[in-house]
């Protein structure tokens, strides 16, 4: 009995040490993550410009429900995310498979494809603005040179084309990252399985669909979830490339929220932190709902398979 008490005492001392060790991390978590989160909720019923806060009750909620620009931006976000995911996941998987075939210079290519990930999105946004300029833009010059188009495409000035342009840029910027996830996942697959398949006479396509893809399923699931959440939160590159235009055609929800919270010097309005906070909660709910739906669907598919 005495021994047990000693053990208990020892455990409590260990707990104390562990507690002390964890204190800085907990303090950081509270200050940098939990407090700002609660702070957001605090202002959703206020008009707050960073200096003075005026209580407005449920007015921000009424405003949100009737805010066409916001709900259109939600639609654009879904559209953008869909375009991005449809292309970036298969492409990055394909690149990962190709570069995993122990071909010559694979590391060099891997590095090249990954490079856009480490370039600042604002810089790449500016570069793409030059590439996709209607007049004297490289993209139009190449396409015209190849005889694919007769007259220049208004990549950034046309409401029909701007989503294509921002999607191309998003794919270019994110391809290397997802490729790396898949490469890492493939490195964990057993060589024995591939050797058995080879002995059984499986060709490359069969190996990919019957072995690589099923064995990569857990990685694919995580990568898809990351891709969905990041696609819904993208806005920096769009802000530089098209400013959400033309005519709000590429306005995504987080760009609209950014504009509201930080205000603009050439605007008659002011920074609207309270309303922006409410919209950011709604945006978080939207992203969260999409992620939950994805997880349920993925689990159901697992059960079926």
């Amino acid at each position, binding site marked *: 009995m005495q021994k047990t008490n000693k053990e208990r005492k020892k455990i409590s001392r260990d707990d104390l040490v562990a507690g002390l060790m964890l204190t*800085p991390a907990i303090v950081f978590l509270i200050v940098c993550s939990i407090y700002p989160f609660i702070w957001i909720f605090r202002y959703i019923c206020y*008009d707050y410009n*960073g*200096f*003075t806060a005026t*209580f407005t009750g449920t*007015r921000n909620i009424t*405003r949100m429900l009737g805010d066409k620009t916001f709900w259109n931006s939600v639609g654009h976000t879904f559209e953008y995310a869909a375009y991005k995911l449809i292309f970036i996941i298969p492409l990055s998987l394909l690149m990962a498979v190709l570069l995993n075939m122990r071909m010559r210079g694979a590391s060099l290519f891997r590095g090249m494809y990954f490079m856009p990930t480490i370039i600042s999105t604002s810089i790449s946004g500016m570069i793409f603005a030059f590439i996709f300029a209607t007049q004297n833009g490289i993209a139009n010059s190449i396409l015209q040179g190849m005889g694919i188009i007769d007259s220049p495409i208004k990549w950034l000035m046309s409401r029909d084309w701007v989503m294509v342009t921002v999607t191309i840029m998003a794919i270019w910027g994110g391809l290397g990252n997802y490729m790396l996830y898949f490469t890492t996942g493939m490195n964990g697959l057993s060589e024995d399985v591939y050797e058995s398949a080879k002995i059984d006479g499986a060709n490359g396509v069969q190996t990919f669909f019957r072995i690589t893809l099923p064995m990569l399923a857990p990685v694919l699931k995580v990568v898809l979830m990351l891709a969905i959440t990041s696609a819904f939160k993208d806005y920096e590159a769009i802000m530089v490339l098209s400013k959400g235009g033309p005519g709000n055609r590429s306005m995504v929800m987080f760009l609209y929220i950014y504009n509201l919270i930080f205000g603009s010097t050439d605007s008659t*309005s*002011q920074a609207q932190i309270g309303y922006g906070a409410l919209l950011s909660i709604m945006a978080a709910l939207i992203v969260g709902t999409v992620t939950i739906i994805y997880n349920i669907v993925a689990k159901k598919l697992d059960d079926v398979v």
Partner: protein
Amino acid sequence: MKKKLISMMLTAAMVASLCACGGTPDADNGQSAGGDSSADSEAQSSGGQEAQAPEGATSIEVWTNDRHDLEYVESMIDQYNQSNSDGIFINLTVITEDYQNMLALAYNGGTAPDVVTANSLPLNTFADTGILVPLNEYIDADETFQKVNEPYEHAYEGLNLRNGNIYGVYTGMRSGVRVEYNKDVVEAAGYQEIPTKLEDYIDMAKTITEQNGGSCYGIGFTSSSPFERLLEMSAQVSGIFYYDYVNGRYDFSGYKEILELGQRFISEDIAYPDQQAVDNMRALFAEGQFALWSNASQEASVFTDQIPVNGFEWGVAPVPSITGEIKGALQTTPSKSWGIVSSSENKEQAWKVIQYFQSEEFVKGYLENGYCLPISTYMDGVIDKSKIGRLADFSMLEYESVYPQPPVINLTGDDYRVVLWNAVMDYVDIDDAIEDLNTRYNEALDADVASGATKRLVISDYDPLHPNDGTMTYLEE
């Protein structure tokens, strides 16, 4: 035991590192009295070295968000620090990023400076919250200051004046928007001068585009607030403004005609096909890619130093109006004012610093360096205009003025400049755009007035040619 000791030491080290992140006001003061560490690093990164006040001198901390005039301002401050007999040492910090928030944070944290560049600080936040102090008493007691700066003649409601209190006195002025044009191309199109009527102006741009077959367009627009840089100013000089001062309501109905005319730039393929960032468009103008550009007096130094125009002669002309007649004032932007922060413990010395910054000697050199146009008639007569270069082309027009600040509101959806430009681009119907703006702006105004977040500005004797001269009343309903 050894393991426990190491654990304890690690914990202590982590806690110590956490505490070190905070720092104390004293530690900050050791580096720069009154300045915060990020501001210090900003100052150092701007090339300024952290100077130490001599023993016994009162250090007056000055924050500015202007970098373009730094060379002149720093040299004058050095001169002052070495020669003033008041025992004052000016310590200048330049904060070009997020200036307003940095200042608010410093004020709330008790590390605000004594003197700040005030022309970019909105009064509804910095004056109403008591961050800036009224300067009236200081001004009234100084006749020389009044003579040089004419503070009461250049006090603008909502900008530097609120309820009779002046929070900063302007020393300069940025002109309203002008048309900058490629003289060679315009003359080749058969025009000796820029038309004063908007329709003729558009016709001229069209002729240029057609004559040059894609090598040079008639006009170029930037993606950064394009409506503001020509059509909104054409509307202003035509007597059209977005706020109805007489009735205290937002009213965008007057813009219909100007939007219909503006649509021609796009529907008739007159304008340069891309609308890029301002500097990109300036570079394209300097390269002769389009002939007509419009912006304010900052273009004088841009097209002589930053992006010099070498291949052709460029001229400056007033913006056109709908009928060719001037029926309203053209908006100008007063610049370079200084304010005193209420937390300053050395307000008398802070005012002495402002007196120096706004002295005839300081302002004369500032204006002659071409940093801005003079705002006071006194300084206009004092400066040697042969020294200001192309800025002389942007001299104030008799119909230029400052509009009283319409109420700042919490607007839902897009700003009027975005919506009206979308109408020009034909992304939205003109009537729908006007109706949408009238609804959203007035809904927001009514709600904000009701909640007490803003007040309705009414000028019953409003004159569009002299918008700042009327009797201003703030209504709470």
